[in-house]
């Protein structure tokens, strides 16, 4: 996939609209909440709960789009639409999240 980790135009627009200080806090909130969503996703997969799986993927997707984390959003969307998925797919989501979180923190600190 050639999706950028973070679409910087989107991120900048978010900062311009809501304020850079606020967006720094929002990044912190995302980084706090996302691990819980990933855990919920794994849990849903383990118990075979298709609805919970889809909801967790959907929430991650929604938040990624807010920040312009396009690669992560695409991965989450694939799981949301595809339903309960393989190990490899969930690991892929984890890597995409790690990369996005890393970059968001850099952008946050640079503001």
């Amino acid at each position, binding site marked *: 996939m050639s999706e950028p980790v973070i*679409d910087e*135009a*989107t991120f900048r*627009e978010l900062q*311009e*609209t*809501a*304020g850079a200080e*606020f967006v720094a*806090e*929002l990044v912190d*909130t*995302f980084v706090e*909440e996302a691990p819980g969503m990933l855990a919920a996703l794994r849990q849903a997969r383990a118990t075979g709960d*298709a*609805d919970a*799986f*889809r*909801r967790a993927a*959907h*929430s991650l*997707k*929604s*938040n990624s*789009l*807010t920040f*312009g*984390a*396009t690669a992560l*959003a*695409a991965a989450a*969307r*694939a*799981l949301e*639409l*595809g*339903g*309960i*998925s*393989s190990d490899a*797919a969930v690991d892929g989501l984890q890597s995409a999240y790690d990369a996005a979180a890393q970059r968001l923190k850099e952008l946050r600190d640079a503001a």
Partner: protein
Amino acid sequence: TIRDSGDALLTIINDILDFSKIEAGRMEIERHPFDLRECVESALDLIAARAAEKQLDIAYVFDGEVPAAIEGDVTRLRQILLNLLSNAVKFTEAGEVVLTVSAVGDEQTEGGAHLQFAVRDTGIGLTEEGKSRLFQKFSQADSSTTRKYGGTGLGLAISKLLTELMGGTMWVSSAGPGQGSTFHFTIEAKPAELPAGAKREFIGEQPALKGRRILVVDDNATNRRILALQSAKWGLVVKDSADPLQVPAMLAAEPFDLAILDMHMPGLDGAELAHAIRAAGHTLPLVLFSSLGRREVPGGLFAAVLAKPLRQSQLFDTLVGLLAHEAAPQPAAAPPKSKIDSRMAERHPLRILLAEDNVVNQKLALRLLSQMGYRADVASNGIEAVESVARQRYDVVLMDVQMPEMDGLEATRRIIANGQPGAIRPRIVAMTANAMAGDRDECLAAGMDDYVTKPIRVEALVDALMQATARSAA
């Protein structure tokens, strides 16, 4: 029942009145531009339920270059279509009813531009003698038909006269009893401009869909053909199969972006096939094609459902919704940076409830609202939303659709159900990440007044709030 007899009597009276009018030369045929697809789809909608009850497949095809709009009488055309379609459904016990529309001739040809319609069914068929009696008034093909199937025997006579008034003819073909029949008719059809406010056009290749690969699985050849034809016109690469058992191998052999599965197939039904696809490790989105629409969907398997008869707009929205890359909202070339108006709440005061469970979304929405001068209350799920609305007066509820415990749709239904007669309820605005027409329809069906798509854009939020008015104290 009384209602059925009343309806039947009304039909008989209307039929006789229509017929006399035509015979007396007093039937007026209108000439106004109208959307052809809309006319066809609305006629099909009227017989869809009955066809579904009998488990018949119904579909329509625009064959070749058919104009989007023509000049004519939309009501009378719909009347003819309905007559032929409901007869076809009535006289068919199994199989399908298919309406085909094609263009014949043009303004240069002798006779001018005409449209030809054909309603083909797999029903009881006709004998030679039956065919000749068919269009005579008060007669049906076979006298025993009346006892078994009812009807005045006038409908076809009227339809035939109407087509003649519209510059065309009607005729029937059938290979024989038990082999179905096809009713054909033509009408004059001068192409016209789509009337103002007409629906979007889905003509030609769509950049959002170009090159995407889909697999269509349906034992019904007409459905396969329609899905394949339309999708190919939009630029998709389509493979199809009549045999569900072949599908896992097809998916293993080549990559596909999406698969459309018919529900009712011999051997393996749509849901069973979906399970098999997932078990084989394929994650592509799956779409169910079913007469019963959403009611038949088993949880978690399908990303969307297409109802029969297939509406072009529904197919389009579903494909785009699932296949087009969801780009993060891109700022357009150089739009003026929308500075949020911090005095909006002063000029347009509103009591707002935000129902949203996701913390990031919640914080962002509250931030945007506060920048406009609004202080909103918060509910973290549908149950809290219902309770909050019961406790205090709100002018607007920004209702996230996907919430745990109780979702936004259910919360909306409860709020409406709990409303006191005479009391004004808050305006409910859905916040939804899904742009598919079916999801929007669901929101509207639940009673929501408006929707904004997520991620939320400031402009959309402002528009939605400007539509709301302060509710006066109850």
